[in-house]
């Protein structure tokens, strides 16, 4: 674990100190490769031993290992994609070298914070790490230095700061299970869970509400979602991929950890009902807005909110729903990153993120368009891809105990599909603009989303045994 952090710190320093663009890009990709290799090794170790704790300060369980692996796959794809994406933007005089350097420094700091949040064994340290992800990404959202980008970044900074402070308050309340905290006592997630029986049920409920609001803000549950479409639409596309594909599950694992503690103290019904409420509201609001979306990057942001809602429902339904939800989390992260990369290609070609300005994309950028359409089909649960099965399993798990919720969720998911489909037909078919250059910009802008598509396709039909073990162990715990 320390190796991952050290590698990323060195890469951030190299990016800050070295003035040769090629060297910075090379080290970023190498670092992402090393991180992926390490994450793979950790995942294998956890699948054998059940958890991994190299030091008292770090602890990775099965779900943590899955998220670590997914985040590192997306980080590598983002590192490779960023090279050509930023080069094309430099060629268009959108950004200069100073911005590129700033981008790589912040990207690596963001990765450090994200990996620390996944592996931190202390809830407060995990909170500090999550807060650090906000700080490192604020300047990435205002990256293009336009008024709209500044506005989006400000909104992101303020809403997330308030949300996370409330999350911090909730986190502190869980510590009331310890009768007296000695000055140097290390409170781990495990000791907090072990002490949960001493936690006042009412305090546990209040604490969970604050934790859910706090980390739910980071996830983007409705009504704390307002920063998300703005931030996603203004950030460079590889950052959108990381925010949606990697950071969202990291915040989710925090809520699940607190949920486990709350359930011990106050019973499972309270957290279940709250998650169902936030989940259904998120699916409903996102689906309604998606139908009338005008910007395809905002469309992806709302799709992210919708899928966060689906995952909240899946985790609250329990049983088979949890297994399906963990799979859904993996598929959703990978496909969302793939869609952000494909939309980046559209943005580079059309120089617009507005849906009405994108016409005949299938003729202009055929591979990108195929990838985007494939991503749309996967994301909306089109068979035979994995999300079709996971959505069906989540809904059927809910159908037994919460039929009305499941039917409502299914209706809104159908609406989301219809809305997305409407935009897809408008963007990819029809007459292309006459003055637009035809063809893909670079193979390096195609390879990362294509690799992700291959991974998702394989995982839709075959789950490696170590991953299956990790998912099964995570189901038992969450």
């Amino acid at each position, binding site marked *: 674990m320390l190796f991952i952090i050290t590698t990323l710190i060195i890469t951030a320093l190299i990016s800050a100190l070295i003035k040769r663009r090629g060297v910075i890009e090379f080290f970023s990709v190498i670092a992402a490769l090393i991180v992926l290799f390490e994450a793979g090794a950790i995942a294998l170790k956890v699948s054998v031993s059940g958890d991994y704790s190299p030091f008292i300060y770090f602890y990775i369980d099965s779900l943590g290992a899955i998220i670590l692996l997914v985040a590192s796959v997306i980080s590598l794809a983002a590192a490779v994609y960023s090279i050509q994406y930023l080069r094309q933007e430099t060629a268009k005089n959108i950004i200069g070298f100073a911005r590129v350097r700033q981008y790589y420094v912040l990207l690596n700091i963001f990765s450090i914070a994200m990996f620390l949040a996944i592996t931190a064994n*202390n809830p*407060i*340290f995990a909170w*500090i790490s999550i*807060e*650090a992800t906000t*700080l490192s990404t*604020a*300047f990435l959202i*205002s990256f293009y*230095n*336009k*008024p*709209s980008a*500044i*506005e*989006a*970044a*400000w*909104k992101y*900074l*303020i809403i997330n*700061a*308030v949300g996370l*402070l*409330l999350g*911090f*308050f909730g986190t*502190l*309340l869980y*510590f*009331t299970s310890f009768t*007296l*905290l000695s*000055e*140097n*006592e*290390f409170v781990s997630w495990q000791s907090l869970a072990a002490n949960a029986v001493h936690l*006042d049920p*009412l*305090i546990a409920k*209040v604490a969970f509400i604050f934790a859910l609001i706090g980390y739910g803000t980071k996830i983007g549950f409705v009504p704390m979602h307002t920063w998300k479409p*703005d931030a996603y639409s203004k950030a460079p596309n590889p950052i959108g991929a990381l925010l949606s594909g990697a950071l969202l599950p990291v915040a989710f694992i925090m809520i699940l950890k607190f949920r486990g503690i709350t359930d011990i103290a106050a019973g499972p019904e309270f957290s279940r009902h709250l998650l169902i409420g936030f989940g259904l509201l998120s699916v409903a609001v996102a689906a309604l807005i998606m139908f009338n979306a*005008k*910007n395809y990057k*905002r469309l992806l942001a709302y799709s992210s909110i919708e899928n966060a809602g689906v995952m909240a429902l899946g985790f609250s339904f329990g049983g088979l729903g949890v297994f399906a939800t963990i799979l859904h989390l993996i598929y959703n992260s990978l496909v969302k990153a793939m869609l952000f990369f494909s939309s980046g290609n559209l943005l580079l070609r059309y120089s617009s993120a*507005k849906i009405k300005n994108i016409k005949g994309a299938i003729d202009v950028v055929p591979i990108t368009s195929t990838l985007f359409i494939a991503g749309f089909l996967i994301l909306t649960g089109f068979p035979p891809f994995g999300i079709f099965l996971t959505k069906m399993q989540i809904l059927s798990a809910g159908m037994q105990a919460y039929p009305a919720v499941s039917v409502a969720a299914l209706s809104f998911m159908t609406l989301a599909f219809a809305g997305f489909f409407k935009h897809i037909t408008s963007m990819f078919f029809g007459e292309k603009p006459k003055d637009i250059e035809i063809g893909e910009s670079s193979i390096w802008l195609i390879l990362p989303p294509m690799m992700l598509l291959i991974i998702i396709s394989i995982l839709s039909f075959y789950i490696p045994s170590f991953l299956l073990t990790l998912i099964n162990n995570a189901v038992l715990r969450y």
Partner: protein
Amino acid sequence: MNILTLQFLLEIIFGTVIFLHITKKNFWAVIAYGVQSLMIGIIFLNSFFETVNVYIGIMVLLTIIIKVILAPLFLTRLIKRHLAMFSVSTYLNTPLTLIIIAILTFIARSQKFAPLTNIIPANQALLSLALSAIFLSLFLIINRKGALSQIIGILSLENSIVVFAVFAGLEQSPALQIGIISNFFIWLIIATVFVSMIFKHFGSLDITTMKNLKD
């Protein structure tokens, strides 16, 4: 330090939050935040004298340097640079603001929040005052239209949560507390950079002038 002295310090903190709601001048809001932070510094100093722990000593020093000296200095420089002497208006007028303050204070003291204010029964009065400060700080962030006021509101919310944690016996290890303070210092630096960017692009610190994200 006896309970009455602690209660007095907490009352000053609570008073500064109310003052933040009423004041129309940014400079006085910054001074109020500085005073609020100083009270927290004194409470931590009390812990240091009781334990004589070096790490707590470092934490006291950091609190005073960052929250009492540097943060107000940063904010004052921002006010001077952008000539933002007067805070931007609120969404609610002063009488309505005061009514909401009274309601929030009442809610914090109500039975609904008794589980929180009874974490340490002996500190019930102190905890309900700290909880009121949390609610009022949250309301300050929502009610103010100025970017600077929002920053001060968030810093005040953090102070209120810290003071609640102290009186509820939920203080974290000094290492973690140093981490939290450092985190907020970085947040403050970033937020002040953004305030300058907002002024550069919008010519005002009024966040209601930012209307570029309609689509």
